[in-house]
């Protein structure tokens, strides 16, 4: 229930962005329906990802498995692949930064780094 509530809230926020962007209105019922479908679709994604990883004799799900979820549409696959590359290069940058940091001051991440990666993950899971 707690997870469903979080999904519902996030879907609500995303729908709001669309409302402002496209000048349409979502009824509360339609937002609820999208949330429920998203929640259930996550179960299906999770099972598929597990199977894809196992198919490659891995126990860890990686980005290649995620790309397979988008295999039915070239447009979607291209979008996800692009996002995945962005994520990979930003991870590289972070590693570089960490190397520099660890030699200088012991500290946490730079503000904003964590948020950026989470948001991108969210994008790909919502697609």
């Amino acid at each position, binding site marked *: *229930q*707690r*997870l*469903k*509530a*979080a999904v*519902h*809230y*996030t879907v*609500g*926020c995303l729908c*709001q962005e669309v409302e402002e962007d496209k000048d349409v209105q979502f009824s*509360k*019922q339609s*937002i*609820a*329906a999208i*949330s*429920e*479908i998203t929640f*259930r*679709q996550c*179960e*299906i994604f999770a*099972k598929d990802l597990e199977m894809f990883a196992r198919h490659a004799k891995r126990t860890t799900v990686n980005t290649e498995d995620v790309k397979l979820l988008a295999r*039915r*549409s*070239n*447009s*979607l696959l*291209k*979008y996800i692949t692009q996002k995945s590359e962005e994520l990979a290069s930003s991870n590289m940058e972070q590693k570089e930064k960490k190397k520099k940091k660890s030699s200088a001051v012991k500290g946490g991440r730079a503000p904003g780094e964590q*948020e950026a990666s*989470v*948001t991108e993950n*969210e994008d790909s899971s919502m697609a």
Partner: protein
Amino acid sequence: KMLSKERRSSQKQMHSHESWSLSPEELEIWDRLYRIKESDGIKEPVLPQVQFETIENLEETPKPEEGAAQELSLSEWSLWQNQPLPTSLVDHSDRCHLFIAAMEMMELMRHQQGDCSYERELRPHLRMEDVDIPGNQRHLSTANPP
């Protein structure tokens, strides 16, 4: 019936041709019995193309001339979709059950005015630390500030 006799005879010849394409006999049968011709007065059935609203669409296929094809609709009979339809050999998948459940949920909510039961049910469970929304968003009425 005529048709079953045709089928039997074409099965007899099955072993005689091993190419991927139809044999002349099969081609003749297909042309006469199954092929859609202009004289039939029915349109060629086509499946709808995938289109995304929010990302660039790569799949650009030439559309058949207007009115020549009948696009198969996946939504025309939505009122029939809130229950599992009969199966023959292949069971319904999880994906299919999700779809049926969603259609059922929408059917139940169709008559609700304004306030939404789904929202009422989940509101007490929302924890703001679970959600990560960038930017300054107007909070939904679901949000109870902690």
